C-alpha cells in the first residue's frame, strides 16, 4: 500500500519532467525480463535526443516521442534493446538477460565491487541457485566441485557438523588451514562450537540459512586475499546475504522434503555365526597341534574347547544363539530432511526490504541425532538523502542439535557400536524391553546404545543474534565514507545427561553436565573510497580501511551426579560431586589497509594493497602484508577488438604476502593451569611459551580469463605458486624435557604449494526452447615441504612432515604378504634396501610412501539441460592422487582372538583370513596369542588405500510452470517443482577401501557418522 504514494509521486515526476512537443505522442508500455517479470529502473532514452525516463517498480513507463524515433532500453544485467516507434502507442518490451554482463561485477575484499574488466583478482562466485541445490544445512557444503581449487572434506555426516574446507590445499602444518569467512563484510569466527570435543562438532556457519544467501565468493589469489593480510593465507570466503529487490512485494515460499541414508554402506561386521567360526579358528590356531601348544589334537574337540574357554560364547549358546545386527539397530533408516522457507522482498528507488523466516529439521543417519534450526533475517536499506544511505540487517537463529559421541572408540559411539558390538549379545529381551544390566554388561563391554540414545541427552543448543549496520556517506561526488559495525552474539548451551541404569552413568548413579559458552564478537570498519581520473584514460580508485575486531568467550560449566530420580535430569536433581568451572579468553585483531585500483582505459590494470595488521595472539603483535596485481585486457587491444568471436581475453599476474595467525590464544606465554589436589590448588605447566610470529605465505598467480562466441564459451585458466615461510611448527620436545604437552611453537621451515586451475563453461545449445550447458573445473595441486630442520620433523603414527617430502606424507612400514604357509603377516624389513621380509613387526622400517592425504587432482563437471519449462541438471565431483589410511584397526579389522571374542571384526577379515596352508590370504590367521597376528593391525601399508573416487554430487530434475498458465490461475507468479538427489552414486577406485572415500583432510578414516546420500523434493511458490 505504501507503493501507491510512490507511484503517484513517480507519475508526477514523469509529467513534470517531460515537456511536450506538438508533433510528439505519448508512448507507454511495460518492460519485462524473459520470464515476463516486470523490470523496474530500466532506463529509456530517445536516441539522439535528451528525453528519457525510467520504468517504475511495475515496469511501466510513459514518455513523449516522435513516430520513427528510436528508443533505447537499457538496464544493468540486460542486453540493450532498441525499438523504433511505429503506430502503436503501447509497447511491451522484453529484455534479454546479458549473462556476460551480469558476471562482470565481482565482490572483492571489504565489499568493494569492481567489474572483471577492472580487477586483477581471481575470484569465483557461486550464486543462490547453485547453493540451494545442496541438501546440507551449512552453506559451505554446496561448494564441493563448484569452485576450482576448493575441496570440502566430511568429518561427520551429522547435520550441522563442521566440514573441512580447503582452498588450494594445505598451507600450514600447525596453524589452521580453514579459510577466513566474511559475512556481509564482517569476519566470522568459524571454530567448532560444540560443547564437547568427544562429540559431533557444530559449525557456527550452520546458523545461517542457505536460502538467505545471495552468493558465496571465493577469493583465492594474492591480490584478492592480501587485503585480509594476516588471515588471508588460507583463502577467503565472502558470504553475501540477499537484499530487497526493486519492484513490488515478491513473496517466496519454498518447502523441501527429503530422505537420507549413508552414501556408502561401509565396512561390515561379522554376524553371530561368522563370529563363532572366527573365535573357534583362533582357539584352534592357538591351542591346536599346528601352531598352538597342542592342548587340542583334533578339530572335533574345538567347539567344546571354545565353549569352555569363552564365557561369551557359552552364554550365547545357552541363550539359543541370538543374533544382533548392530548396524540395523543403530541406523536411522530414511532419515528425514524437512525444510521450509518464506521470504519477502520489496524495493523502490529509496529503500529496499528483505525479510525471511526459515525452518529446518534434518535427522542424521544414526538414531537419536538430529538438527533443528529456526531463523529469521530482516534487511532494510534506505537512502536518507542524496549523500547518505544506510543498510541495516538483523538476524536471529536458534539451532538445536542432538549429537552423539563420535570419532573415538567410545562404548556409546554408534559408529563404534556397529563395528565392535558383539553380535552374540541381545539389545532387547524377548518381551521387547531393553536388555541392560549384568545380563548385558557381563557379556560385552559395549553399552546398550539404543537404550542410552533413548534415555541420555547430548545436545547443543545455540542462540545466535547478529546485526550488521552499514553507513555510506558521499563526502563528494567521488569520495565515499563507509562505516560498518557488525555485532554478533552467540550462546551455546551444551548438556550431557547420562542415565543411572546403563553405560557411563551407572557408576555415578546418573549424572548431568552442562556448559554455556558465550561468544561475543564485534567488528568496526571505517573506510574512505575515492575514485578519480587523471586525463581521460587513467582511472584510479583508492580505498583506506581501518578495521578492529574483538572476540570474547566466556565459558561456564557445572557437573553433578547421583541423581534423585530418572525424571530429574538437571543439576537440581544431582546430589554429589558437584563441580563448576569458568574460563574467559579474548582476542583482538586490527588492520589498516590501503587499496589501489588503477586502469588505463580498462586496458591495463593494476591492483595494489598494503595492510598493517595486529593480532593479540602473538608476542610481537604487528606485521605488514602487501600485494600487487597486474592485468591486461587483451580484448581491448585493436588487434583483438575486431575479432568478434572473442569477447574477453584477460591476462592477470599477481604477487603478494599474506599471513596465518590461527593459533591458540595466549600461547605466547609460559603458563600453568590450575587443577586441584586434596581440594587445594594444583599448578601444572601447560604452556612452554613462544616468541613465534606470523606464518607468512608468498603467493604468485598467473591466469587468463577468456570468453568466446558471445559468451557461450568462457572460463579461465591459471596457475599459482604459494610458498609458506616461517612456518609455525609445534616442534616436538623430548619427553625428557619434562614438559608434558611435549611441543613448543616455533617459526621454522618452508613449504610449497603449486597448482593449475581450469574453469570452463559452454553453452553448447542455446535456443529459446532448448539449452544445454556444460561447465567444469579441474584443479591440479602439488605440495612439498622444502625446508625443515630434522629435529622439527613431525612424526605421527602414520605420517611425517619432513624436508623434501609432502606435508604429512604417509610414513609406514611396508606390508609384504600373508605367508601362505602359516597365515602370519610379513613386512618388508627395508624395501629401500632389498625385498627381504620379516614377521617381526618391530624389525620393519618405516618408509616414505610418496603420497599424502591431499588429492593431486580434483574437479567437478556439471551439466544442465533446459527444455521449455523443464530442466535437468547433474554435477559430478572427482578426486585422486591421494591416499587414505584406515584407523582404529584393532577395533575393526583385527584377527586377534581376544578382540574377536570380546567384540567383533569385519566380514572382510572373516572372508580374507588365512585358514589353511596354501591360502593366498589377505588377512592374518585368527589367533589369540601370536605377536605377528596381533601386529597385523599395526600401522602399515596394508591399510593404505588409493583415495581416488568419483561421486554424483547432485542430480536434479525440475519443472517451472508456464507463466501464461499461472496468469490464468492468478495469484501465483511462479511455481517450480524440483526433485533432487545428492551423492546417489559413488565410484571408488580401490575396491578394498570399504569406507566412504570422502574423509577429512587428515586422510584418516574415523569412527564417525559417514557421509549421506539423499533424495529431496522441493516446491517453490512465488506470488
Amino acid at each position, binding site marked *: 500500500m505504501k507503493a501507491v504514494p510512490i507511484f503517484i509521486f513517480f507519475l508526477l515526476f514523469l509529467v513534470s519532467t517531460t515537456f511536450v512537443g506538438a508533433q510528439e505522442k505519448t508512448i507507454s508500455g511495460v518492460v519485462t525480463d524473459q520470464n515476463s517479470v516486470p523490470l523496474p529502473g530500466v532506463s529509456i532514452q530517445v536516441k539522439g535526443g535528451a528525453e528519457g525516463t525510467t520504468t517504475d517498480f511495475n515496469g511501466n513507463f510513459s514518455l513523449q516521442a516522435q513516430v520513427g524515433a528510436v528508443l533505447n532500453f537499457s538496464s544493468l544485467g540486460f542486453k540493450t534493446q532498441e525499438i523504433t516507434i511505429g503506430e502503436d502507442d503501447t509497447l511491451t518490451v522484453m529484455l534479454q538477460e546479458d549473462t556476460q554482463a551480469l558476471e562482470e561485477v565481482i565482490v572483492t575484499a571489504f565489499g568493494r565491487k569492481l567489474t572483471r574488466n577492472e580487477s586483477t583478482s581471481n575470484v569465483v562466485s557461486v550464486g543462490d541457485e547453485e547453493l540451494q541445490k545442496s541438501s546440507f544445512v551449512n552453506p559451505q557444503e554446496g561448494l564441493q566441485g563448484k569452485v576450482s581449487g576448493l575441496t570440502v572434506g566430511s568429518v561427520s555426516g551429522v547435520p550441522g557438523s563442521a566440514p573441512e574446507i580447503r582452498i588450494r590445499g594445505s598451507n600450514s602444518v600447525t596453524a589452521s588451514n580453514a579459510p577466513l569467512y566474511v559475512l556481509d563484510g564482517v569476519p566470522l569466527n568459524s571454530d567448532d562450537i560444540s560443547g564437547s570435543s568427544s562429540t559431533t562438532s557444530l559449525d557456527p556457519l550452520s546458523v545461517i540459512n542457505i536460502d538467505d544467501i545471495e552468493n558465496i565468493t571465493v577469493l583465492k589469489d594474492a591480490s584478492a586475499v592480501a587485503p585480509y593480510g594476516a588471515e588471508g593465507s588460507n583463502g577467503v570466503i565472502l558470504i553475501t546475504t540477499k537484499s530487497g529487490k526493486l519492484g513490488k512485494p515478491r513473496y517466496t515460499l519454498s518447502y523441501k522434503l527429503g530422505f537420507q541414508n549413508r552414501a556408502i554402506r561401509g565396512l561390515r561386521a561379522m554376524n553371530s555365526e561368522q563370529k563363532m567360526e572366527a573365535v573357534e579358528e583362533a582357539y584352534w590356531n592357538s591351542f591346536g597341534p599346528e601352531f598352538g601348544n597342542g592342548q587340542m589334537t583334533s578339530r572335533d574337540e574345538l567347539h567344546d574347547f571354545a565353549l569352555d574357554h569363552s564365557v561369551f560364547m557359552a552364554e550365547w549358546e545357552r541363550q539359543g544363539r541370538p543374533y544382533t545386527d548392530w548396524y540395523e539397530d543403530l541406523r536411522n533408516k530414511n532419515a528425514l530432511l524437512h525444510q521450509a522457507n518464506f521470504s519477502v522482498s520489496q524495493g523502490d528507488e529509496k529503500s529496499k526490504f528483505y525479510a525471511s523466516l526459515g525452518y529446518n529439521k534434518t535427522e542424521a543417519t544414526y538414531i537419536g541425532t538430529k538438527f533443528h534450526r529456526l531463523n529469521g533475517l530482516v534487511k532494510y536499506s534506505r537512502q536518507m538523502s542524496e549523500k547518505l544511505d544506510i543498510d541495516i540487517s538483523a538476524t536471529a537463529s536458534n539451532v538445536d542439535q542432538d549429537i552423539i559421541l563420535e570419532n573415538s572408540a567410545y562404548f556409546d559411539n554408534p559408529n563404534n557400536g556397529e563395528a565392535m558390538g558383539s553380535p552374540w549379545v541381545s539389545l532387547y529381551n524377548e518381551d521387547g524391553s531393553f536388555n541392560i544390566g549384568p545380563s548385558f554388561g557381563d557379556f560385552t*563391554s559395549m553399552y546398550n546404545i539404543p537404550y542410552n540414545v533413548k534415555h541420555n541427552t547430548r545436545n547443543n543448543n545455540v542462540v545466535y543474534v547478529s546485526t550488521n549496520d552499514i553507513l555510506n556517506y558521499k563526502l563528494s561526488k567521488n569520495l565515499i565514507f563507509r562505516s560498518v559495525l557488525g555485532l554478533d552474539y552467540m550462546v551455546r548451551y551444551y548438556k550431557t545427561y547420562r542415565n543411572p541404569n546403563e553405560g557411563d552413568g551407572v557408576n555415578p548413579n546418573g549424572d548431568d553436565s552442562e556448559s554455556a559458552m558465550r561468544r561475543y564478537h564485534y567488528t568496526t570498519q571505517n573506510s574512505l573510497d575515492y575514485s578519480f581520473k587523471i586525463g581521460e584514460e587513467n582511472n584510479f580508485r583508492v580505498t583506506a580501511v581501518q578495521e578492529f575486531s*574483538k572476540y570474547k568467550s566466556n565459558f561456564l560449566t557445572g557437573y553433578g551426579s547421583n541423581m534423585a530420580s530418572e525424571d530429574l535430569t538437571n543439576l537440581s536433581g544431582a546430589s554429589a560431586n558437584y563441580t563448576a568451572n569458568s574460563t574467559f579468553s579474548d582476542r583482538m585483531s586490527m588492520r589498516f589497509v590501503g587499496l589501489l585500483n588503477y586502469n588505463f582505459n580498462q586496458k591495463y590494470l593494476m591492483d595494489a594493497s598494503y595492510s598493517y595488521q595486529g593480532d593479540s595472539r602473538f608476542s610481537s603483535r604487528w606485521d605488514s602484508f602487501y600485494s600487487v596485481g597486474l592485468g591486461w585486457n587483451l580484448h581491448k587491444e585493436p588487434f583483438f577488438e575486431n575479432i568478434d568471436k572473442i569477447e574477453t581475453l584477460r591476462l592477470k599476474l599477481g604477487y603478494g604476502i599474506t599471513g596465518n595467525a590461527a593459533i591458540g*590464544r*595466549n600461547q605466547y606465554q609460559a603458563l600453568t593451569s590450575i587443577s586441584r589436589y586434596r*581440594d587445594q590448588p594444583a599448578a601444572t605447566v*601447560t604452556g612452554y611459551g613462544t616468541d613465534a610470529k606470523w606464518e607468512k605465505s608468498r603467493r604468485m598467480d598467473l591466469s587468463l580469463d577468456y570468453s568466446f562466441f558471445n559468451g557461450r564459451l568462457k572460463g579461465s585458466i591459471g596457475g599459482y605458486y604459494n610458498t609458506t615461510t616461517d612456518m609455525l611448527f609445534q616442534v616436538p620436545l623430548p*619427553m625428557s624435557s619434562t614438559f*608434558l604437552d611435549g611441543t613448543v611453537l616455533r617459526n621454522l621451515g618452508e613449504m610449497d604449494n603449486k597448482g593449475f586451475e581450469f574453469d570452463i563453461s559452454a553453452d553448447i545449445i542455446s535456443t529459446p526452447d532448448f539449452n544445454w550447458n556444460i561447465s567444469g573445473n579441474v584443479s591440479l595441486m602439488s605440495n612439498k615441504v622444502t625446508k625443515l630442520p630434522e629435529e622439527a620433523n613431525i612424526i605421527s603414527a602414520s605420517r611425517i612432515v619432513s624436508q623434501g617430502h609432502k606435508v604429512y606424507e604417509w610414513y609406514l612400514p611396508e606390508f609384504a604378504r600373508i605367508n601362505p604357509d602359516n597365515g602370519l603377516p610379513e613386512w618388508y624389513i627395508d624395501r629401500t634396501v632389498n625385498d627381504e621380509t620379516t614377521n617381526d613387526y618391530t624389525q620393519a622400517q618405516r618408509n616414505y610412501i610418496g603420497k599424502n592425504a591431499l588429492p593431486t587432482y580434483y574437479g567437478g563437471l556439471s551439466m544442465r539441460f533446459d527444455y521449455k519449462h523443464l530442466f535437468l541438471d547433474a554435477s559430478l565431483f572427482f578426486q585422486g592422487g591421494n591416499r587414505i589410511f584406515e584407523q582404529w584397526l584393532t577395533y575393526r579389522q583385527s584377527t586377534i582372538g581376544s578382540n574377536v571374542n570380546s567384540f567383533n571384526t569385519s566380514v572382510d577379515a572373516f572372508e580374507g583370513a588365512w585358514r589353511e596352508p596354501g591360502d593366498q590370504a589377505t588377512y592374518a590367521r585368527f589367533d589369540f596369542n601370536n605377536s605377528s597376528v596381533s601386529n597385523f593391525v599395526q600401522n602399515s601399508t596394508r591399510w593404505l588405500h588409493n583415495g581416488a573416487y568419483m561421486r554424483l554430487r547432485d542430480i536434479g530434475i525440475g519443472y517451472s510452470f508456464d507463466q501464461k498458465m499461472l496468469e490464468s490461475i492468478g495469484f501465483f507468479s511462479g511455481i517450480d517443482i524440483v526433485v533432487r538427489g545428492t551423492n546417489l552414486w559413488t565410484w571408488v577406485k580401490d575396491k578394498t577401501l570399504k569406507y566412504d572415500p570422502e574423509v577429512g583432510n587428515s586422510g584418516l578414516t574415523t569412527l564417525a557418522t559417514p557421509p549421506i546420500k539423499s533424495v529431496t523434493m522441493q516446491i517453490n511458490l512465488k506470488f
Partner: protein
Amino acid sequence: MKSTLIRFFFLMVFVLVSSCEMEPTLADQLDTQIKSDKNIRSFLDGTYRQMVNFRYYGRNMILAGELRSDNTYSNGNSGRMTVMSRMQLTPTTGDVGDLFNQIYGTVANPNIIIQEYLSGNEIEGEQNNIEHMIGEAYGIRAQSHFDLLRLFGQQYIDEGENLGVSYITEFKGDDVQIPRGTVEENKSQIYADITAAIDHLKEGQSSQYSQDKTNFTLDAAYALLTRVAVYFKDYATLLAYKDEVEDLIARLPVTEASELVEYWAQSTPGKASIFELSQSESDNQNIDGISYIYRGNNYGDVQAYDSLIQDAEFEPGDIRISEEMMQIDDRGILRNMGKYPSEGQQLGSDNIIVYRIEEVVLNYAEALEETGQQSNTGKSASDYLNMITSHRNASPYTSSVDMDDILKERRKELLFEGFRFFDLQRTGRDIPNVDPSTVNNHELVPAGDYRFAMPIPRREIEANKQTKQNPHY
C-alpha cells in the same frame, strides 16, 4: 543533518581510539614464576596430581609391576593393557610412552621450585614451610627418576651398556637433549636427591606439611631410601640409616589382621601409611583408574591367574585371601577386591598408597637377611617377617629365612600393588609363563632377558638425539 554527521564523526573517532587495546586478558592461568610459599605449594600439589594420573601411580605404574609377572594378566575385556600383559612392548606402545612421558612430567614442577630456590631469589613465606617443600621437591625428583630407572634402565639385562635414564635437573634449560646417564650415575644422583630431601625435610619438621601423609614427608624419604637400596641390593646404604628406619617401624604399627580390610577401604591415610596420593569421590581418575581395571563393570581387564593363591603359597585363613580381599566373581574370574576397593564410594575414589610401613619392614628384613646383621634391639630378619605374618593370620617363619622367604612374603603382602615384576627383576629370577591357556599370556622371560627393560618410546628417540634405545627394540 550536519549535527548528526558531526556526532557521527565523533562516534567514529571514539571507536577508533577505544579499539586500540590489543592486550589479551589472562584470566585462567598463571605464569610459571615462583613468588611465594603459596606458589610452591600449588606447584607441588600439581606434581602430586600428575603422579596420581593413571599413566603413573594412578594405574600404569602398578600394572607395569603386576602384568609383567606371575600374578595377573589382562583378559582384554575392554582391550586395555593386552600388549603389556603379553610383554610384547614396542617403542610405539601407547602405555610405554604414557609412562615415560608422565613420569618425566612430574619432574617439571620440582625442578622449577629447586631452580628458584637455588637462584637465591627471595621467596615470601614461612621458612619452615619453604624448607619442607624444597625437601618434597627433591624427594619427588628422586622418586620419579628412580621409577624411570626401574622401568627403562639396563641394570638387570644381560646386553646393553648399563645405561640408566636421562636425569633432569632443570626446566627449560638451554639444552633439552639430555643423554642417558649410566646406572651408577643415576644411582648416585638419586641418593644425592634423597639426601637433600632428608636435610630439607628435617629443617621443615615443624611445618604443618610434615604431618600430612598425602604429601612427601621425612618418613617418605626414608621409605624411598629403603626401596632404592634394596632395588640395587645396596644394603649398606640402607643399614647406614638403621636408626631412622627402626624408629619409623617403631612409630608406625603394621596393620592388624582385623583392620586390614578397613585400612584399604578408608578414604584417609591409615596409621600404617607413609605416603599416599590423594583421590576423592569428586576428584579421581575415574574410568581410567586402577579400580576400574581390577573390577570395573566394563573394564575389569586385569585378573589374577587362577592358580595365584596356590602359587603364592597362601595358607588357609590368611586374611589377605579373605572374601573381602580376593574373590572369584560370577564369571569365574579371580579378582583383587580388597585393594583400591572404593568401598561405599564411587569406584576409583581410593587414595593410591605409595609407601606403607609393611614394605619398609620387608625391605629392612631383606637387608638384615642378606647381610646377616641384626637390628639395634637384636632382632633378626625372621622377626621382622613375623611382624607381618603375625598380623595376617599366617604361620611365622622359623629363624633361618632366606631370600626366597622374603620374596614369598613380599608377594603375599604387596600383591596387586605393583611390586612383583621389580622383585623378580632385581633378584635375577625368571618371569614364568603361569598358564599358557590364558589369553594375553607372556612366554617365560628368563633372567637377564631384554624384556626386563622397557623400550624407550619412539618420540623420545626421535626428539632427543642424545638418547639411545635399549637392546632388541
